[in-house]
C-alpha cells in the first residue's frame, strides 16, 4: 500500500528519531529506504517484545521512537508493552502490520486476522485502521493526537496484497 519513501517521509513529518523494528513482508521492503536515509535511525530487534522496552528507554532518554512490527509480534509483546505503556505510562506509538486483512489467499482463515483488533482493544491501545492509501494522513494526525494526550497509539496497516 505504501512505499519506503512514503513511510520515511511520514516518519520525518512526525519527527521520529528511531524506528525500532522487526520486518514482515510488507514492512521489510520499507527498511532499506529508511536505513539508507540514516534518519530516523533503524534499530533492529531479535523479537518484538524487546522493541517496546528499547523504545521506552529511547523515550526516557529524550528521543521520539516508534515501534514497527507485524501483528504477530504484537501478540508476543504482551508483558513488555503492558509494562512500558501502562506501568510506566510511556506514550509510545506503533505501526503494526495487520496480516491478512486485505486478503487471506496466502494464509486462509488466518488467526492473526481474527485476534489483532480484539487484542489491541483489550490492551486499551487507541488505534486507527489504515486500509486504503488515502488514509495515510490519518497516521500523522493520530500520532499527534496521541502524543498531545500522552497516551499510546497505533496505526494498524492493512496487509495482504501489493
Amino acid at each position, binding site marked *: 500500500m505504501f512505499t519506503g519513501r512514503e513511510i520515511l517521509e511520514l516518519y520525518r513529518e512526525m519527527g521520529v528519531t528511531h524506528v525500532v523494528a522487526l520486518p514482515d513482508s510488507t514492512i521489510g521492503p520499507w527498511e532499506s529506504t529508511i536505513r539508507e536515509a540514516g534518519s530516523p535511525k533503524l534499530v533492529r530487534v531479535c523479537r518484538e517484545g*524487546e522493541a517496546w*522496552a*528499547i523504545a521506552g*528507554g529511547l*523515550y526516557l*532518554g529524550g528521543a521520539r*521512537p516508534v515501534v514497527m512490527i507485524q501483528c504477530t509480534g504484537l501478540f508476543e509483546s504482551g*508483558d513488555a508493552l503492558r509494562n512500558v505503556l501502562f506501568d*510506566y505510562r510511556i506514550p509510545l506509538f506503533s505501526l503494526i502490520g495487520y496480516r491478512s486483512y486485505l486478503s487471506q489467499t496466502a494464509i486462509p482463515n488466518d488467526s492473526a486476522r481474527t485476534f489483532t483488533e480484539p487484542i489491541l482493544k483489550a490492551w486499551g491501545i487507541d488505534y486507527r485502521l489504515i486500509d486504503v492509501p488515502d488514509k495515510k494522513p490519518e497516521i500523522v494526525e493520530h500520532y499527534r493526537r496521541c502524543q498531545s494526550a500522552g497516551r499510546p497509539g497505533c496505526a494498524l496497516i492493512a496487509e495482504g496484497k501489493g
Partner: protein
Amino acid sequence: MPHPIATSAERMTLVEALEVLHAVRRDEVVVTTMGNAREWQKLGKNALDLIYVPSSMGQGTSLALGIALAQPDRKVVVCNGDGSMLMNLGSLVTISAQAPANLTIVVFDNGVYEVTGAQPTAAAPALRPNSAPVDFAALARASGFTRVFAFDSVEPWRNAVAEIVRGPGPTFVQLQVEPMADAGLPAFPGPAPDRALALRAALKPAE
C-alpha cells in the same frame, strides 16, 4: 580484554558486588532489576537511578539500550540477574549490533530465581545434565561482545570496576555471586510513572 572467571575459594555476595559498583559510580544512569534492585536501593537514592520495578522480567537490558542510544554521551549501566538475562538472551545480539560505546551490562549470576525462593534456573548446575553451568560470558562473546569480563570474588572486581565502566563498550560483565537466603522482593520504589518522568527530566539537556 577478556578476563577468565576467577577461581577463588570465596564467592562474593550480591551486596558486596553492588557496593563495589556504587563506590565508583559518578554520573552514569544505573538501571537495576529484581534482586539487585532490592539491594541497590539500600545504598541510597540517585536521580540517575532507574529502579526497574515493576518490570517486564528480562527487559532491563533492552530498556537500558534505549537510554544508551538516546544519550550517547552518558554512560549507562544495567544490573541484570541471570534469570532475567535468560528471558531476553536475544537482547545481547540486538545490543552488539547497535554497539553502544556507553553501555555496560552486569549480570549477577547466582544460579537461582532469588526473589521467588531460590529455585534454580535452567542455566544452573542443578538442572544441567552434566552439572556444568551455562557460561554467560561465553554467551556474550558468541553474541558479538568483544569486551567481556567475569569475576567471582570481590577484590578482582573492585580492582577492575572503574576501568570497566568508564572504558568503551558495549561491555558485558558476569559476576558470580552467592544467592541470598530469604531475600524476597524489592521494596516499592514509588510510582513508576513519576519515576519515569523524573529520569526523563534528569536526562534532559539544560536549555
